[in-house]
């Protein structure tokens, strides 16, 4: 026993118990505070509470009609302890070193809706907590940001796109709301569906076609306004052969999505582009290593997309990038769940996330710990791009307007 040498304790069960005794609002605040302090110390950024709104700075000189927005949902649900906590930063080196110092970082974003990926992403895109069946092929019930954007600003269909995993996201571009009707939504590309069609199930593409982690044993059939195979050449100017050949060089479905996003940016330069990443959700299979691999890949792909934005003439200097998870995952402390594997308990850890915004007019390297809501994104985009999200239940985030 005398050979045992003391070392510092990182965490303790007592801390976990104390945390469990906090009421949800206190716990959410503590989580956000911890995230803030870590971001401040690790990335060397400032607190934003006392700063003036950033509209006084820049985004000047960019006519509202030329502004572009790219939204990345850091999808699949990732917890702080594997990302924005001291022990998690090794998994997100690109966010920590490259993107956080350039961004306005919101430490306390709450999702008060249903914690299923399709319905949560639909809520992000409508600014209303949707209640549609997460596993059914249904459109959102409230108008989407794409419909507000296109109808009010009279933008063509080519100006709003969604690139999404194929597990039910095919209807996310357009709502069933009667005030908008068909034809005002975003075009939706499901890269895995596209690749499946392009390869007809032949060849070694299986690693890119993994699907539907939330229901690991079941993948729904597709229907709705999806991007047809024949449009691959007509619209993206990609031959099926080239697409297949490039796909061979990729390692995951999200890499395939980012490849398609780049093609869209070059061919159409849409003003509103939404990409939902999803590799992280492999966590539902219970393999921690694959979950971590998904986080590291999502971190890298997010940074690569920001570099693409800065290098593409149509985007450089006039694009705001938003990165935010749809929600988190269950806490290790909640006996009702199984830690990282699922997001079923509805506990505070799984509901409290973060958001970063980068681009002209955004004050870089600032941390805001005011609580915001995940449905605040749509009215914020409206204020930024010049349309009114009249039916959204969220409020514009003034700090970045």
């Amino acid at each position, binding site marked *: *026993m005398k*050979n*045992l*040498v*003391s*070392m*510092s*304790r*990182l*965490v*303790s*069960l007592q801390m976990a118990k104390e945390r469990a005794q906090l009421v*949800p609002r206190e716990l959410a605040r503590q989580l956000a505070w911890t995230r803030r302090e870590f971001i401040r110390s690790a990335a060397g950024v400032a607190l934003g509470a006392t700063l003036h709104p950033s509209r006084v700075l820049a985004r000047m000189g960019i006519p509202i009609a030329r502004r572009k927005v790219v939204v990345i949902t850091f999808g699949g649900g990732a917890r702080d302890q594997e990302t924005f906590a001291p*022990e998690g930063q090794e998994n997100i080196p690109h966010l920590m070193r490259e993107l956080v110092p350039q961004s306005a970082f919101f430490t306390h974003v709450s999702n*008060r*809706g*249903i*914690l*299923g990926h399709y319905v949560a992403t639909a809520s992000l895109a409508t600014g209303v*907590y949707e*209640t549609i*069946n997460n*596993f*059914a092929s249904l459109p959102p019930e409230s108008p989407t940001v794409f419909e507000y954007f296109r109808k009010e600003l009279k933008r063509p269909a080519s100006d709003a796109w969604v690139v999404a995993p194929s597990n039910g996201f095919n209807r996310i571009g357009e709502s069933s709301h009667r005030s908008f009707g068909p034809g005002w939504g975003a075009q939706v590309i499901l890269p895995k569906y596209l690749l499946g069609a392009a390869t007809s199930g032949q060849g070694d593409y*299986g*690693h890119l*076609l*993994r*699907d*539907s982690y939330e*229901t*690991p*044993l*079941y*993948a*729904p059939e597709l229907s709705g306004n999806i991007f047809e195979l024949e449009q691959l050449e007509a619209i993206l100017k990609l031959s099926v052969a080239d697409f297949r050949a490039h796909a061979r060089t990729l390692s995951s479905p999200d890499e395939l999505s980012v490849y398609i996003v780049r093609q869209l940016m070059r061919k159409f330069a849409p003003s509103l582009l939404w990409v939902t990443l999803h590799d992280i959700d*492999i966590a*539902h*299979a*219970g*393999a*921690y*290593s*694959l979950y*971590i*691999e998904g986080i590291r890949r999502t971190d890298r792909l997010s940074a690569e997309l920001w570099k693409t934005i800065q290098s593409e003439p149509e985007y450089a200097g006039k694009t705001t990038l938003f990165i935010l998870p749809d929600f988190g995952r269950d806490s*290790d402390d909640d*006996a009702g769940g*199984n*830690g*990282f*594997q*699922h997001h079923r*308990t*509805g*506990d505070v850890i799984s509901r409290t996330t973060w958001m970063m915004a980068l681009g002209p007019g955004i004050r870089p390297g600032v941390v805001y710990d005011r609580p915001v809501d995940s449905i605040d994104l749509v009215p914020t985009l409206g204020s930024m791009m010049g349309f009114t999200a009249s039916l959204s239940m969220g409020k514009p985030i003034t700090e970045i307007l």
Partner: protein
Amino acid sequence: MRPEELKPEQFGGYPPEARRLALDYLETFRRLPLGFLPNLLREVIEFDFKFPVERRLLERELANLRSLSEQDLRVWFREFTEIKLSDSLEKLNWVTSPAQFVEQLSAHLWATHQMDAFRHAALGYADKLHAAVAPEPPASPRFGIAVIGQGVDVASETLFRRLRPYGAYFSAVNPENGLRHLLEAVAARANSNPAPYAHWYIDGGEQPPHASGVTLVSYGAMEPVRAALLARIRAETQKRGMGPEALRTLMAQLRPVDLGMVNGGDAVLNRFQIKLLTEGSGTQIFSTSFVQWAAREALRRAQPLTVLARFAPRQRQKPMNELLSPSPEQVEMDPAGSLMDADMGAYYNWINQQRLPGSEKSLFLAWFENHKEAVAISPTLPRGTFSTEAIDLRGILSWMT
């Protein structure tokens, strides 16, 4: 139907002992709110297949409910009575199929934004029950063992990071006969404290060796059952109208005999093993997920005194359709990824053990199989310490007790 309308004949489809229990407490059931009762019946209907500890706990919970006055009941269930249910839920046959009711109740709670309220009500009930019905202390301190890293030469990441703060880390363990020493320790505990389902050996690989008084579960031994289940899933998902929720309902109804397990033998253990595959996520395809979930469920349900969980390499990740349709070719394994999965799994095993009564005296040992690293947690070992002294596992075991 409302609980107050319950009739004895409605329990005719329950297994014999469950029916007897239900009829004994019929009056009590009639006094409980519908937002709560089906959750209780979900436990009652499984009574014949429950472990001894579970049976005792359920009987004590029911006895406590029967003892409550009308005023007590109002206090205990006020929050449950405030949950608004739909007409369609009330029309469901929640007596015969309580699990299906609970599944639909869950969807209803999410969709109507009542999940937080229900969660609060459930936690409050658990606290009151915990205070009213004292937990059973274990006959001797519990002992959890996790053996991880089978087939790995060198760990690429630091092991036991999450466990080390709670115990002593050993870096010079003599691995010779390590597994044998641990099996002997388990056998000795089974001999000194014999009780049904009190001592478990769970293996992610082949059929474990026979040991008297030890409950044996292995991924390898479940191979024919897993194959039958995967074939069933493939067949069902190709049927028209089959969705993820319907598939989950169907899987929950499967019995051991439906998947080729012969009648006779240990009906309780057979049912437990089937549930690992039909209710677990990833347990059907990844051995690491199987071992972690099996240990979690054994601890939660059987509250054993001893659990030795030995993780084995899982198969490499592939598209879900390939994982569901294993080819006769050699399965490619992922030992390095499996080590990372098992490292997290060991931590979860310890957390789940600590949720049980007597946690302040419980013991836990995690060992990197055939290597020199181990971590031991015990009241006799100071937390957050390490030892570089040469020692074998028998030596560590002696330090722990």
